[in-house]
């Protein structure tokens, strides 16, 4: 076969979302790739400029639909800084609870999709089944399974329902042996190693040159985790380890994500213990009324005409399940943010795709792209 371009996407089982990977191949060897994005571009940054601060939360759940609470947390950290609000400590613990559960849920979703990519059928359902338990927990206190709308400027919407911590511990107890089962199905199989070892190599230096973060960077042995390097919320009071691997390949990313889930379980036990011992308010008491918190925002025109709210800039960075996410909120004293800028980790990870795809085979694209954990919602925003 001579050289040809094939379009993997936008309707393709490999893409896990709407995007198009154009691949130039000769035989089965990849010569060049060119990702085409934008199929899911909803202009979240623009819509945010037209919404009240709290209303932006509904967009955050849809930015990355498998890690909604992490993005809510990211946005709220920046927005609160821009609005000069400080949430109470219990609310911060609740947010960490959300984020860590979301990390496990997101990684389970990744696991399910990834094993499907390399042709493993049943672990796909195992991953989805165990993720469903976490969604049940989310539903029991946020009221929804995927679009939570749980965080508000100044704290969180509501406290945990009675008996939540026991249920959550049960789920964690269930999850830990499952991780071992996952490893048995993947790492225990020789075919898995044949498929994944040494694929998609990207060294730590290359990762940093091309802005690649998250499990991809950690799989190259670089220990960068914003939860540790630049603790936000209450991460400086929690005991956990940063998972790294040395392969810089697909197997390494698998190992990092698996270990991260175990570490998240470890964090969650601590957070649940803390929440049991420290009841308290979950919402800051001094809030600007026009923000609407804890109520929904009041979309009345001209509400601010006779108010002069202080200006500010908010900047936050969190370790989202996919990598380093960053929000930049400019508050010009209006009722809407003046400008919101999000940095999506998958955006940068995809931008570097040429450097970890070229030279491999067409059959290697699904495992490699699966190990990147593409979430098109946050790439296109």
């Amino acid at each position: 076969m001579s050289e040809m371009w094939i379009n993997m996407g936008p309707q393709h089982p490999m893409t896990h979302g709407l995007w198009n990977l154009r691949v130039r191949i000769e035989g089965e060897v990849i010569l060049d790739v060119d990702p085409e994005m934008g199929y899911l571009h909803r202009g979240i940054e623009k819509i945010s400029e037209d919404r009240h601060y709290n209303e932006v939360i509904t967009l955050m759940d849809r930015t990355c639909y498998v890690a909604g609470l992490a993005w809510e947390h990211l946005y709220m950290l920046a927005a609160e800084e821009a609005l000069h609000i400080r949430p109470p400590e219990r609310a911060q613990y609740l947010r960490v609870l959300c984020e860590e559960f979301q990390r496990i849920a997101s990684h389970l979703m990744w696991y399910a999709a990834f094993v499907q990519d390399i042709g493993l059928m049943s672990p796909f359902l195992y991953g989805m089944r165990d993720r469903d338990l976490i969604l049940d927990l989310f539903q029991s206190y946020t009221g929804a399974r995927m679009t939570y709308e749980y965080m508000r400027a100044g704290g969180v919407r509501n406290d945990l329902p009675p008996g939540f911590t026991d249920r959550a511990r049960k789920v964690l107890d269930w999850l830990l042996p499952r991780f071992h089962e996952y490893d048995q199905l993947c790492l225990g199989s020789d075919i898995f190693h044949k498929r994944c070892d040494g694929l998609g190599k990207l060294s730590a230096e290359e990762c940093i040159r091309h802005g690649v973060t998250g499990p991809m960077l950690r799989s190259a042995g670089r220990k960068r985790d914003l939860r540790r390097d630049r603790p936000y919320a209450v991460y400086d009071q929690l005991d956990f380890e940063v998972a790294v691997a040395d392969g810089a390949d697909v197997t390494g990313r698998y190992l990092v994500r698996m270990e991260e889930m175990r570490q998240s379980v470890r964090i969650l036990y601590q957070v649940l213990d803390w929440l049991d011992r420290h009841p308290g308010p979950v919402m800051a008491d001094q809030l600007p009324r026009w923000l609407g918190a804890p109520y929904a925002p009041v979309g009345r025109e001209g509400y601010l005409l006779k108010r002069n709210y202080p200006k500010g800039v908010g900047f936050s960075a969190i370790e989202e399940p996919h990598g380093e996410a960053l929000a930049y909120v400019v508050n010009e004293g209006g009722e809407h943010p003046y400008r919101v800028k999000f940095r999506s980790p998958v955006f940068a990870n995809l931008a570097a795709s040429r450097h970890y795809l070229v030279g491999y085979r067409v059959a290697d694209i699904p495992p490699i792209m699966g190990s990147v954990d593409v979430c098109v919602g946050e790439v296109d925003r």
Partner: protein
Amino acid sequence: MSDVTATEKPDENPILWVARPMATAARQFAKSLFRPSTIVYPYERLEDPKFRDRLDVASGKPFGVGQVWDNYRGVHALNIATCISCNLCAFSCPDVCIDMVTTAGSDPKHPKKCPQIDYGKCSYCGFCSDACPEGCLTMTTRYELSVSKRSDMIYPPERLFEVFRSKLPMNPIRLARPENEDAILLDPPLCIGCNACARDCPTQCITMLDVPKPEAKPGEKLPKRIWKEPVVNDSDCVRCGTCISVCPKECLFWGTRK
């Protein structure tokens, strides 16, 4: 905090190159042969009490599914009787899917407006029920919304009232009002005493009180106005801002009451 952890690979025994995953799959098969984790959806439902707390880790066997909790955000229920037509739900809707429409059978002279929700647009964020001061617009656990016509996605108030009457479990979480709420303040020199605010206030918390007509100083012309001024009862006020929007002179505004 301890240092880096290098994750270890399980030992690779080439003899077991397919045995380990196959044994795991077989174990799962034996487990789910009698009780799979799924439910047979149209015949069994998550809200069925028998699915409550099915997660029993110790036995490992009846590994179950979740449940629809009472605070699930599904279709809205509207109690038309207690709705005060304050518009707060419509104002707070980020998707602009709530319209205030006249309810059937209300007095044509003083039509009662209640929310109508377009579920084609609704994102189930729950801001409207959080904003509802009377607790008459709540979200229920109903989650089945498929219809065959797009117009059926629009629920008029009467249909929302039907949901209310079906006595579904409703979202029990009521948010506490913040302590430092702004109040409606008056800029007295601008007021003309026109009674528009008191007339349109959904809670009738505004009363028009007489103000003494000042003595006209020589050479000064008194403004032509009714010598009444609105007084807002803060404990009854729901902060909907209707008075501000109907005020012809823009003399009402938000502020902190001293």
